[in-house]
């Protein structure tokens, strides 16, 4: 017990790791929904054109 090392404080690295995980996932999901929404808008416009023809 005398020579036992104390557990190092690495909480900052843990927070950084999970911040990267949640940050990148958030960016990906946002880009995903934006692309999906844009495709739906394009489809609506093109369908209007198609019916108009």
């Amino acid at each position: 017990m005398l020579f036992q090392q104390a557990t190092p404080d690495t909480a900052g690295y843990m927070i950084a790791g999970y911040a990267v995980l949640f940050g990148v996932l958030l960016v990906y999901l946002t880009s995903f929904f934006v692309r999906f929404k844009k495709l739906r808008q394009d489809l609506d416009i093109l369908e209007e054109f198609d019916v108009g023809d």
Partner: protein
Amino acid sequence: MQSKPRFLTILDSVTAILFVIAVAMVFFYAPLERTMGQVQKVFYFHVATAWVGMLGFLVAAVVGILYLLKNDCKYDIAGIAAIEISLVFFFIAIIMGSIWARPVWNTWWTWDPRLTTATIVELIYAAYMMLRQGIEDPDRRARFGAVYSILGFLSVPLTFISIRLLRTIHPVVVGDSDPGAEGSFSMTDPMKATFFFSLFTFSVLFVDLFWHRLRMGKLAVVVEELRMKVSA
């Protein structure tokens, strides 16, 4: 475009619940590792994200083979969906690993066999996304994508076995580590439960995202066909 399937809505909810439980297990159930401290908790999602990355690259290789056999564009849609998701998760795994390495290896990065092969995998599939954009003909693009995803997948098992065959400081989670590996630890039962639950959760997350991405891919094909019809 078909409305969202009911089962997909249920899968979204199940995935969200599993994800919350996995996060809670990492922070409140898994014990603190004594020599590394809190940063060891990065390990659970680092391995899970790397697993999802490799899983998606495998799916892309399989659907690549199916595309070459059946020449059906749905396999091309599945291939790009799997690679896009895997690219994101593999990127997260590499960055999380680098953050874990700083206090444990005393460096952000080292050209160790595992880190080097993982980077090569990420770059191979990043190049896939860029090269695809340069091919206008849909059939040629799909054929290129299929062949590339099959050949590109050769780098994935190489990454997986690199820490088992070569001298490395990267620890092995399942099996024996190299004697020179730094950051190895024996998992207690709560750690094992958290680890396998995280792997399961991220596998479900992959299926959920893959399904959504497939729907988007199909929608993109419908839009493209309609655009060509209207402009003709």
